[in-house]
């Protein structure tokens, strides 16, 4: 990602508003932007979802192909998550091999759905050690206004819910729904000048001191976390973020 010169100018504006308890788009500190999810958007994928979170727009596609399991997990299918921060989405994204930022995004999304057992990977095993379904979760960012983590996580969950295992094309009988187990929803919070804000916009991300993404499942249990940026959280702040993430996550889960 190339250097952004506007950040310093915006920092003043954003922090001054925060001191008055306001965000630049008028949201509460613990309020997500409007969320719109359209599933089965891409017919060529086994599952897909177009997610709009405020002005952030991502398309998540799920494809399943037959392959070999990893030697150390012969009884489970393979989950592979990939994020493309394509230059279409922002003037700061560049084409070429994935940079650190796309790798972090892909890995955080992967961790949420893997550790939260969004899909029962054992049911994607056809012949132990020999043949399993390899599930590709590809995140295509179309319009970038911050918080890719949550937009992509929500998209992946929504896509799983409507995805079908393509048995027919592989000569294995009828297509069946993807074996979905849990819905781990991740919520990202940033810290700016001591204030905690959920679902940051791009401007907020640019001036943030620290970032924390927390994925929770139906029980309220935490299944994955990622702290980012150079700043720090106090213990109290971490607990508060986890509580908020679990509460907002439950709300989003009920809307999928």
């Amino acid at each position, binding site marked *: 990602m190339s250097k952004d010169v506007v950040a310093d100018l915006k920092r003043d504006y954003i922090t001054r508003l925060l001191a008055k308890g306001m965000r630049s788009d008028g949201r509460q500190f613990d309020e997500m932007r409007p969320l719109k999810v359209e599933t089965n*958007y*891409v*017919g*060529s*994928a086994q599952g*897909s979802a177009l997610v709009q979170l405020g*002005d952030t*727009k991502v*398309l998540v*596609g*799920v*494809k399943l*192909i037959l392959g070999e399991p990893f030697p150390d997990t012969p009884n489970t299918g393979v989950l592979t998550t*990939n994020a*493309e921060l*394509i*230059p*279409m*989405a*922002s*003037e700061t994204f560049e*084409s070429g*091999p994935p940079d650190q930022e796309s790798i972090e995004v892909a890995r955080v999304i992967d961790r949420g759905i893997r550790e939260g057992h969004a899909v029962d990977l054992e049911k994607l095993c056809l012949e132990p050690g020999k043949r399993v379904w390899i599930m*590709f979760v*590809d995140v*295509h960012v*179309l*319009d*970038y*206004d911050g918080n890719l983590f949550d937009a992509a996580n929500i998209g992946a969950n929504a896509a799983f819910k409507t995805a079908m295992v393509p048995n027919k094309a592989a000569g294995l009988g009828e297509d069946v729904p993807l074996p979905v187990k849990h819905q781990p929803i991740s919520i990202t919070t940033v810290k700016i000048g001591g204030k905690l804000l959920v679902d940051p916009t791009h401007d907020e991300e640019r001036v943030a001191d620290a970032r924390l993404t927390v994925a929770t499942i139906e029980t309220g249990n935490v299944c994955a976390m990622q702290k980012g940026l150079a700043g720090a959280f106090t213990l109290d702040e971490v607990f508060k973020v986890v509580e908020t993430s679990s509460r907002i996550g439950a709300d989003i889960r009920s809307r999928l």
Partner: protein
Amino acid sequence: MGGAPTDLKLIDERGLRLDGRRPDEMRPLKIEAGVLNKADGSAFVEWGLNKVMAAVYGPRECHPRHLQNTERALVQCHYNMASFSVEDRKRPGPDRRSHEISKIISEALTHVVFTEYFPRTSIDVYIEVLQANAGTRCAGLTAASVALADAGVPMRDLVASCAAGKVANTIVLDLGKEEDNFGQADIPVGYVPRTDEVVLLQMDGDLTREEFDKGLHMAIGACKKVYEVQRDALKRRYTARAEGQEEGA
């Protein structure tokens, strides 16, 4: 262009194609301009089962810098297919095919952009194929033209694009996926209606001179229809914008 499997009839007894189209009938085309927030200009094209998005950034600083031209702007197109846009998952990232398509689309667009107005800059055009069903380069070029206009880039005209081809010994317009896979020829065309010029032309397969003549004319006829849809998308975009401004005032 492979041979058709024996059980696949690309044109039936009534002279209709697999999806029920007549030979000279285009798939339904929808265009929307200004669909993205970050980009300077954008357009979304739904053409049959194709879904293609185009975004324009610039004129802006030219990267890589050694490509900079002191006399004019560089139109750099980047055509990319999403890994989930096709039946078998495509490995992400550019391959030789997308490099070639990017190049010919850049060249087609360069012809209509007033590049001399913006020396040393780059006008970056990103084409993302979200769902592919044959004809994505035509859909991409069509979308890119609208996105350039939406970005306010000065142009001589829009480039409209459509393909013709040959299936089951018949010249047809706008090949679908099976027709592309099992047909006999494909001619993608990019056309500038105002100046009556062809700015993109490819062909593969086997055609007689007469067939090529017929195919090219058919494609250009379709480009003129595509052009109307492009103009209509831009008009709708700017009508909406003008109304929005009145409300704001």
